[in-house]
């Protein structure tokens, strides 16, 4: 029964015959594809099979040639045996020009950190791993491909070559780079603008926060809990209901929302945040996800409040300026008549003391209006050269009153102190502000020391100690024995509206104004303070080498004159007291109540030497307008303005530059006399020099 292929048994022969018959039958019915030629040991394909084979080869070729991947076959030495059309396109060669060349000839320079040639070799030896490799195009440019190789096996025993599949990822990489660049830019913008980003998944009840957002809530990066519950828990308890309501409303409407809420930091501080957000709805209108941005607006809110405060102050200032004008007129009358009466009284008159008290009260009122005007920046700045010691001495009495009985005032004044050039009233203001500040630092009492000395700053100390140009300075320092200041307070000390006092006690403007005044004078205020050990504020002012201007009082002897003065003043009381003062100094006076009247008198040929006019006049023509008119027709006439403040200093400037002067209201007989004399003398000096030339 069992037949082996070599036997010649009957069964075997019979089977061979049957097989032969079946073979012929199959051949005749066209069921045979190939015949094996036993002699040549090679198969012979029948025609129909050849067609089929060709068809299938064509099919494969079509697949290979239309593939969007590059296909590259290599022999065992990695020389090119075939490239498809796509690969030839990628590299910019004709396909046949690549045949026979080593694949390594087409390696680019670098692939990331690696040498492209080495990486290409490595990936050919490590089949089935994908690698990003740079290849060089015919034109020298590089392209980036994703490369995967696999050995081609004709028989089990040996590799006959390598099949390489390549995908061009240059565009993909470029797009990824662009995306990365866009992301980097966006992240940078969000970081720099300090914008926090959140997103929430309402289905899983999870949330993500960016590091900026965590920072806005005072959290360290990565410490936000990651749930909606944690999200809500970081919001100020009073704002939670509103936030939840807003997000819920947006979840129903699908509309963008914006809101403000407070965040409580772990250190207890409260920060204001604004949020813009959006809720994405599902197919049935249910909220799926939310995203939003958040910004810390604490500083902006503070600035807005400061701005409002500043506007309020400006309004107060304007009001003060208006009141001060009328007030100054009243003070002029009070002081003027008191002085005139005092001048006529015998030295031993019993009412002299009473009148001195009236003057003292009026002087106090004068400094009050000056302070009001300082707020509204309508104070007239009149730089002069003077000894700061004089100012300290003059203000001492007022300072003692200001600081009260529990605080001792000590002055240590350098008798050889240099002069400074600035507005004397402003220095007075600075001293008052600093001393008041010291007093407030010592609620239980203590000592305020005002000290003056000369200082020479060399290059080094000027730069490091005081932020000044090297040179000679005078230093006026105010020290207290009070509570001292923290470095935080010191850093903000001169900021406008920064105050450590209760909101109704300090304006926060005193030190800021002082700082501005000193800076304007080319100086600097240095602060030296240790918490619990008192503070010293040192005012550096550039030393002036000019000669001291005549100090008030010493000029009284030279303030007299006999010239004819035309006085224009709309306030009857002021007009009368001013007339009285001028007459007591020997001048002749014609006074009128309006600019129009003055012009008429001048046109009628009245010959006066000085026009003294108030800046603010009731009626059509104010002081400056009158003076311009007068200047045009009578250019040689001397002009003196009287003013308590100047809200329109710019309109006056050209007049002041061309020789007119201002006497500040309320004036005393002394200050008026000095100014009148000065203007008249300057004019006659100019006349004389014109006559000489």
């Amino acid at each position, binding site marked *: 029964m069992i037949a082996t292929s070599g036997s010649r048994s009957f069964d075997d022969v019979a089977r061979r015959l049957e097989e032969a018959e079946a073979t012929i039958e199959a051949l005749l019915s066209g069921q045979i*594809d190939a015949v094996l030629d036993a002699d040549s040991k090679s198969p012979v394909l029948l025609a129909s099979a050849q067609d089929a084979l060709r068809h299938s080869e064509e099919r494969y070729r079509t697949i290979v040639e239309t593939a969007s991947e590059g296909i590259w076959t290599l022999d065992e030495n990695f020389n090119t045996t075939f490239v498809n059309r796509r690969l030839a396109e990628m590299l910019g060669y004709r396909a046949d020009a690549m045949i026979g060349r080593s694949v390594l000839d087409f390696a680019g320079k670098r692939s990331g950190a690696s040498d492209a040639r080495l990486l290409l070799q490595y990936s050919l030896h490590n089949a089935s791993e994908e690698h990003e490799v740079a290849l060089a195009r015919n034109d020298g440019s590089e392209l980036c491909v994703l490369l995967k190789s696999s050995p081609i096996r004709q028989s089990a025993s040996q590799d006959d070559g390598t099949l390489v599949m390549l995908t061009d990822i240059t565009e993909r990489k470029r797009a990824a780079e662009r995306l990365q660049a866009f992301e980097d830019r966006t992240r940078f913008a969000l970081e720099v603008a300090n914008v926090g980003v959140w997103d929430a998944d309402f289905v899983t009840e999870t949330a993500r926060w960016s590091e900026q957002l965590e920072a806005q809530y005072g959290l360290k990066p990565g410490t936000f809990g990651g749930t909606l519950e944690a999200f809500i828990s970081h919001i100020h308890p009073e704002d939670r209901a509103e936030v939840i309501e807003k997000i819920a409303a947006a979840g129903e409407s699908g509309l963008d929302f914006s809101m403000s809420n407070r965040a409580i930091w772990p250190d207890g501080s409260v920060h204001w945040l604004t949020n813009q957000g959006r809720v994405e709805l599902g197919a049935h209108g249910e909220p799926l996800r939310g995203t939003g941005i958040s910004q810390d607006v604490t500083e902006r809110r503070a600035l807005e409040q400061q701005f409002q405060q500043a506007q309020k102050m400006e309004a107060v200032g304007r009001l003060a300026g208006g009141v001060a004008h009328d007030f100054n007129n009243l003070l002029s009358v009070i002081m003027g008549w008191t002085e005139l009466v005092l001048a006529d009284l015998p030295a031993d008159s019993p009412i002299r003391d009473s009148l001195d008290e009236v003057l003292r009260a009026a002087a106090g009122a004068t400094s009050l209006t000056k302070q009001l005007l300082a707020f509204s920046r309508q104070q007239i700045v009149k730089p002069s050269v003077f000894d700061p010691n004089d100012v300290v001495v003059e203000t001492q009495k007022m300072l003692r009153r200001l600081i009260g009985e529990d605080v001792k005032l000590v002055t240590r004044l350098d008798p050889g102190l240099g002069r400074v050039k600035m507005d004397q009233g402003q220095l007075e203001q600075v001293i008052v502000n600093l001393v008041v500040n010291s007093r407030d630092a010592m609620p239980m009492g203590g000592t305020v020391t005002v000290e003056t000395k000369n200082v020479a700053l060399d290059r080094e100390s000027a730069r490091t100690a005081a932020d000044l140009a090297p040179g000679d300075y005078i230093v006026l320092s105010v020290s207290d024995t009070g509570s001292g200041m923290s470095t935080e307070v010191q850093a903000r000390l001169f900021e406008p509206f920064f105050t450590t006092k209760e909101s109704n006690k300090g304006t926060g403007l005193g030190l800021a104004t002082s700082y501005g005044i000193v800076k304007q004078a080319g100086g600097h205020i240095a602060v030296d303070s240790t918490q619990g050990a008192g503070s010293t504020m040192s005012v550096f002012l550039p030393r002036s080498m000019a000669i001291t201007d005549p100090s008030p009082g010493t000029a009284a002897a030279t303030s007299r004159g006999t010239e004819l003065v035309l006085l224009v003043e709309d306030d009857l009381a002021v007009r009368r007291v001013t007339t009285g003062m001028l007459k007591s100094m020997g001048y002749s006076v014609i006074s009128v109540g309006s600019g129009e009247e003055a012009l008429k008198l001048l046109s009628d040929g009245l010959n006066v030497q000085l026009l003294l006019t108030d800046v603010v006049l009731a009626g059509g023509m104010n002081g400056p307008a009158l003076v311009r008119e007068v200047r045009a027709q009578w250019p040689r006439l001397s002009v003196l303005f009287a003013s308590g403040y100047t809200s329109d200093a710019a309109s006056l400037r050209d007049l002041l530059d061309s020789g007119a002067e201002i006497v500040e209201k309320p004036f005393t007989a002394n200050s008026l006399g000095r100014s009148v004399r000065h203007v008249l003398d300057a004019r006659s000096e100019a006349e004389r020099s014109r006559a000489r030339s």
Partner: protein
Amino acid sequence: MASRSENSSNLRLRLYVAGNAPNSLRAIANARAICEQHFAAAYELEIVDLLEHPLRALADAIVVTPTLLRLMPLPVQRVIGNLDDGTKTLMLLTGR
């Protein structure tokens, strides 16, 4: 596959074909269908391409393709052609 070949009662077949020639493809499809239908539990079908392995064909005394060899159970049986006649093929495969 290995576990099936250990079982001596299993059907072991070897089909010689010529690449993707039409009768060869038909024979492959027919052989698979018959095996799945009648011997699904235990069979082994090896497909050998004459064009790739002419020497193996010579060793198996193959003259034309497609040729289906029944290697097990013995005796060896041969079915010539594209196996379109399923009944004849089945008879030859199950016969002695």
